[in-house]
């Protein structure tokens, strides 16, 4: 029987988690991972396990041993952190990404001799600054080299013209910061003195993080200040050499690693961070790639005095530090951006909590991983209390080097960006501001190599707070960072003002953004009203033809027949602005009627089809109709206004010159009755103009296009649709309603016509997909209620970019595919705001979201108070485009179409040969979403992908299973049945070559270690550690394990640049391996 500790380790290796709850042991294990024997073992060791867990949970009682000077036995000893930095340096020696720069301006008269003397003293006091790092027997070590000197390099900018000086100086700072160090031959610190003017200098320190951390700058500033002052005054310096070396600390840290206390720490971090290290889906400007680039930039900001005062007040009244308060705010913002309420933020700690380490130069900094989660509805006050608790608890385990506990949880590192979000806080209130008579001030730099995606960095100088966000430039653009800072200040302002309000009620939206969104929403094509526009719209181009199954009308015929209607209406006394009621089905005549009515300057007032014949008179009276145009669908009896059946018009000669007889100048050119509300609405000339123009630009019809119009005359979109089509010169095809009642006839018509564009109302929604199958369309505009659209599958042949748009009446929404054959990948839907609609993106609490953060799309008609919650997820780009990415009802955009994942999943699981299945649309490394199906089959033989696709196609008929199909042994689920999708293999993440099993013993050893560490199923001899996702931390572990198993020690470079087989070929002959 193994010990409880060994058992715990074994359980962790199998991804089985246990925790103590009172006297109960709660086990969280992947399906099938606990067999009978293991279960028995857990039960038997229950008491011991509980004991260990409780110990880890409660604050440790073991006292921390002090760091002591240990003498020569510590020589050459490196801390785990230094080893990792060395490793990173070996992997990318040219990057300079481990350099730490810091610059201060020195104002006043500079005593150069004193400065030089102070520098010599400073270097003399700190052996770390004379240390070289090198590899010896494949192990990195260090040695103090008394010969190493740090020269003060000088540069003069004072002769440059003033306007260029600062820019050149900043550029120089940046250039110097990027020069890599050769740690084996030069000191890990470079110092520069720049002359900017007679009374102005800058001291610039660039150091390497193997020997330096952020607090070393404080030591430098402090010590150099005192030394400089003493040398100026020719006094004794009074500073003594620190009693300890960094090596003593490294030695102590290694020894501590074996202690009970360290074991407790390790357990604490493992428990605390389980499941908390995954990458947060914060929207970026560029996709995240496997190969991180650490080039960074910095965006500075400062807080108003008033805000700082209120912040300090709140902190004081709650008994928390400003640090904790800012950390809470940063967590809230990060959570908002990622749409999560469980975030992990890293924060550096000084690591010098023993007082004798205070003045020692070296990389003591450790990183704490603060996992902060909150419940919906929590107030800011409650949030900061929780953050306090979390921070204090983490601090009590801070002595455990981050490298140690991360190495102990390889499975967690797989999908993690590790130091993704960081928070650094510097209290500089008691910082030296003078070196003798020189005034010293830190120079802000706008560049920074950053290991975090986003690092919020705040400097607290007592009564002022300033800071910056450092960001990775391969992911973010400065524009977005500026926004993030805006949101940060916004959250700060709102939460501090109303700490008792739930944090979910504080909107991120700034006033500026609110204005911007309003502007984008109200942006309209075109400008002022052009009175001749309608006239021009009615000037039908010569190319126009109207086609129906009854024949073809050319322009002349359209013109002549519509004039007859105009003439008849005017003769019967219809005046400009009067309403003419229409009771017609869709037919060529209805289009001619529209032209006739508008030319008479009258209002087009279609009677809704829902109005029964007996109520027609009432309806006409209600809208003040002066005439009725109808077709044979009503029996023209007892109509109280002049009425014509369109059959009574006859073809007349077309000799009359084409012109609009009377210009329509009425403010209301058509009256429409919305199908949802019963109130009468009208389209004014002005809105018609807007509609025509926006349709024109969105639909892009032109001569040569065949436009199939399936709207009925009582549809509010009928008039704009007909007019814009006629004005474009396209062939307008409109089958009569009788023709289009069923799918078969419609299909025949579509086959005959081969339309390039279709516009239809909701009634034909269901027939359309079948009818257009196999037909290529440039655009498709469907009117109707979006909720209806949830049940239909749009024609798969049309894969354009979709715009949400609509016709001009409440309850009418449209989807438009304009001419775009290949939407840019990852952006299935893009476009400006829908004409005449206001688009808003909201979060789950109903708060409007600023540009850059995705949420639910809500549409409302301009001026309408009732918003329509669409099922789409959308995001405003920073430039006013509205990108719509996925549907919230389970439909996601992947494989170039909308996919109903729940439905596919259900159908898959119902298949007789499928044991379990899971589908996901995952972002691939190419940036677009790919559908991946993991399937566990029952039976011995794995069916082919074709079998699965066909079986599903038979089951679902209208939806097929595209994408990658990955057979797996089982779908890992937690106790509640939820899929642990993080554990599922992701084919797009491995770029593995053809599989070839490891042959030799050393190959097998490597493969075994990699499999274990990287959590991959199998490792081929052609795989490389880096391509499998190995990190530098894991690399250290591989090197250690290989060494302990075989005695062979090798360079990390080998691991990162060679395949398994190539590495194995470098190994000593097998006989020599122990």
């Amino acid at each position, binding site marked *: 029987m193994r010990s409880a500790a060994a058992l715990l380790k074994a359980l962790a290796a199998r991804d089985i988690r246990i925790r103590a709850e009172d006297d109960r042991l709660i086990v969280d294990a992947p399906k099938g991972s606990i067999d009978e024997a293991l279960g028995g073992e857990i039960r038997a060791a229950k008491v011991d396990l509980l004991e260990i867990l409780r110990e880890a949970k409660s604050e440790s009682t073991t006292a921390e041993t002090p760091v002591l000077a240990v003498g020569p036995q510590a020589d050459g000893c490196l801390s785990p952190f230094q080893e990792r930095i060395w490793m990173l340096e070996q992997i990318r020696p040219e990057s300079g990404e481990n350099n730490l720069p810091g610059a201060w301006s020195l104002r006043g008269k500079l005593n150069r001799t004193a400065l030089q003397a102070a520098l010599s003293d400073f270097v003399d006091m700190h052996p770390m600054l004379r240390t070289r790092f090198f590899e010896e027997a494949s192990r990195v070590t260090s040695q103090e080299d008394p010969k190493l000197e740090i020269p003060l390099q000088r540069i003069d900018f004072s002769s440059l013209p003033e306007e260029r000086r600062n820019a050149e100086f900043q550029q120089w700072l940046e250039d110097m910061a990027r020069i890599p160090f050769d740690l084996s031959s030069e000191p890990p610190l470079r110092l520069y003195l720049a002359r900017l003017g007679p009374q102005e200098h800058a001291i610039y320190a660039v150091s390497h993080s193997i020997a330096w951390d952020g607090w070393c700058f404080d030591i430098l500033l402090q010590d150099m200040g005192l030394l400089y002052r003493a040398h100026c005054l020719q006094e004794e310096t009074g500073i003594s050499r620190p009693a300890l070396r960094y090596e003593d600390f490294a030695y102590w840290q290694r020894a501590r690693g074996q202690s009970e206390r360290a074991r407790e720490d390790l357990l604490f971090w493992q428990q605390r961070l389980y499941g908390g290290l995954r990458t947060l889906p914060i929207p970026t400007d560029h996709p995240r790639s496997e190969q991180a680039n650490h080039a960074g930039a910095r965006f500075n900001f400062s807080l108003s005095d008033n805000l700082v005062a209120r912040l300090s007040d709140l902190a004081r009244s709650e008994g928390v530090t400003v640090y904790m308060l800012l950390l809470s705010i940063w967590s809230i913002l990060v959570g908002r951006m990622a749409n999560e309420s469980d975030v992990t933020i890293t924060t550096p700690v000084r690591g010098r909590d023993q007082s004798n380490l205070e003045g020692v130069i070296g990389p003591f900094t450790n990183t704490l991983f603060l996992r902060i989660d909150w419940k919906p509805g929590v107030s800011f006050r409650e949030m900061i209390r929780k953050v306090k608790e979390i921070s204090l608890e983490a601090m009590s385990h801070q002595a455990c080097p981050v490298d140690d506990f991360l190495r102990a949880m390889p499975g967690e590192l797989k999908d993690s960006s590790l130091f993704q979000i960081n928070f650094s806080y510097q209290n500089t209130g008691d910082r030296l501001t003078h070196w003798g008579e020189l005034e010293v001030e830190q120079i802000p730099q706008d560049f920074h190599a950053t290991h975090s995606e986003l690092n919020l960095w705040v400097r607290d100088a007592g009564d002022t707070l300033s800071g910056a966000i450092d960001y990775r430039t391969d992911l973010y653009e400065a524009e977005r960072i500026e926004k993030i800072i805006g949101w940060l200040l916004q959250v700060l302002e709102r939460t501090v003002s109303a700490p008792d309000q739930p944090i979910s009620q504080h909107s991120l939206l700034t006033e500026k953004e609110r204005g911007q969104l309003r502007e984008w929403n109200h942006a309209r094509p075109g400008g002022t009203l052009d009175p001749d526009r309608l006239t021009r719209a009615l000037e039908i181009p010569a190319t126009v033809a109207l086609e129906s199954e009854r024949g073809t009308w050319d322009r002349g015929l359209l013109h002549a027949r519509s004039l007859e209607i105009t003439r008849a209406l005017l003769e019967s006394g219809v005046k400009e602005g009067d309403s003419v009621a229409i009771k017609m089905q869709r037919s060529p005549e209805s289009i001619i009627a529209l032209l006739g009515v508008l030319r008479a300057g009258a209002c087009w007032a279609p009677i809704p089809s829902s109005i029964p014949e007996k109520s027609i008179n009432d309806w006409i009276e209600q809208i003040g109709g002066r005439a009725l145009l109808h077709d044979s669908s009503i029996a023209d009896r007892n109509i109280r206004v002049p009425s014509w059946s369109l059959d009574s018009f006859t073809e007349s000669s077309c000799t009359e010159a084409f012109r609009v007889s009377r210009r329509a100048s009425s403010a209301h050119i058509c009256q429409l009755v919305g199908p949802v509300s019963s109130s009468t609405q009208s389209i004014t000339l002005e809105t018609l103009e807007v509609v025509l123009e926006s349709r024109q630009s969105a639909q892009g019809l032109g001569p040569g296009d065949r436009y199939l119009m399936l709207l009925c005359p009582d549809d509010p979109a009928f008039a704009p649709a007909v007019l814009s089509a006629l004005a474009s010169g396209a062939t307008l095809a409109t089958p009569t309603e009788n023709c289009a009642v069923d799918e078969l006839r419609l299909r025949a018509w579509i086959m005959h016509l081969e339309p390039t564009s279709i516009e239809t109302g909701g009634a034909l929604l269901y027939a359309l997909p079948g009818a257009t199958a196999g037909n290529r369309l440039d655009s498709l505009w469907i009117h109707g209620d979006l909720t209806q659209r949830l049940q239909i599958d749009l024609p798969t042949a049309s894969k354009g970019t979709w715009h949400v748009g609509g016709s001009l009446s409440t309850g009418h929404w449209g989807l438009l595919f304009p001419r775009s054959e290949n939407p840019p990948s990852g952006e299935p839907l893009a476009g400006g705001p829908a004409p005449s609609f206001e688009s808003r993106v909201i979060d789950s609490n109903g708060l409007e979201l600023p540009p850059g953060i995705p949420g639910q799309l809500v549409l409302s008609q301009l001026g309408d108070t009732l918003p329509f919650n669409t099922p789409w997820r959308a995001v405003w780009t920073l430039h006013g485009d509205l990108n719509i990415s996925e549907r919230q009802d389970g439909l996601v955009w992947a494989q170039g179409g909308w996919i109903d994942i729940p439905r596919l999943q259900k159908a898959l699981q119902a298949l007789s040969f499928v044991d379990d299945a899971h589908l996901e649309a995952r972002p691939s*490394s*190419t940036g677009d979403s790919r559908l991946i199906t993991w399937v566990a089959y029952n039976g011995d033989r794995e069916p082919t992908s074709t079998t699965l*696709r066909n079986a599903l196609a038979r089951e679902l008929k209208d939806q097929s299973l595209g994408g990658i199909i*990955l057979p797996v042994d089982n779908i890992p689920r937690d106790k509640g049945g939820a899929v642990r999708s993080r554990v599922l293999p992701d*084919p797009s993440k491995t*770029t593995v070559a053809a599989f070839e099993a490891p042959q030799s013993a050393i190959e097998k050893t490597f493969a075994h270690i990699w499999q274990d560490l990287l959590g991959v199923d199998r490792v081929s001899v052609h795989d490389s550690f880096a391509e499998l996702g190995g990190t530098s931390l894991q690399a250290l572990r591989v090197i250690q394990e290989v060494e302990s198993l075989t005695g062979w020690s090798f360079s990390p470079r080998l691991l990162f640049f060679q395949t398994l087989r190539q590495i194995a070929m470098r190994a000593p002959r097998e006989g020599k391996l122990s």
Partner: protein
Amino acid sequence: MNPFFMGPERKRLYGLYHPPVLRGPGGKGVVLCNPLGSESSRAHRSFRILSDSLARSGWHVLRFDYRGTGDSAGDVDSVTLNDWVEDIGVAINELRAIAELKGVHLLGLRLGALLATAAGLRHADTQGLILWDPVDLRSQSVLGAQWTGQLDQPVPMDSGGAANVRDFEQMLLEIKKEPRESHSSWPHQALVLGSKLIPDRFRELIGQNLRRMAFEETDAPPPWLEESNFGAGPVSARAIQTISTWTGLAP
């Protein structure tokens, strides 16, 4: 890389899918058509590296084993060349389903080039052909050539003669058939690596039948054979470069 089986159960084919690893030209895929016999194993490394390289430039790549070869089902004695052309069709469909593509390119090496041409003519969703060092159709020992990589060697019958001459003639007839002019999605382009070795007859066949194709040739076939067991064979960076460039330019 994702290994899997595709096709009807009794004719299951072993396939390897390489997803694109970089934002590429957008929605492009290529099916690699193996040569046969020893050529197949000696070209394995070239194909693997080519696949990775194409995937890195944004292509969806599918490699597979023909029926009766490699890890695919079937007895090599009972399959015909025509079966293999069918297999390419299965691979085309599978890659289209995986990557949601309108059409794919076919890349064939040696006899694979001939099979790819035949498949390309049958499948309207073939957008382009890449023919690498195609076999010489004039040679009486053409099948021998594809076994050994040398044109003057006879077919070693004991290595499981997969294709018979009748099949071969059948396939030539197939290639000779005029394509329907109205077919809009005919392969539009072909890249031939190694024009010096392309016999006139083959060129004539391609030229005649694929009139609408842009037709590019390179000077000499870049090497593809792997001579060493240690993976140190002369995998042609030039071929990979040429193919990558050409495919990068192809629409």
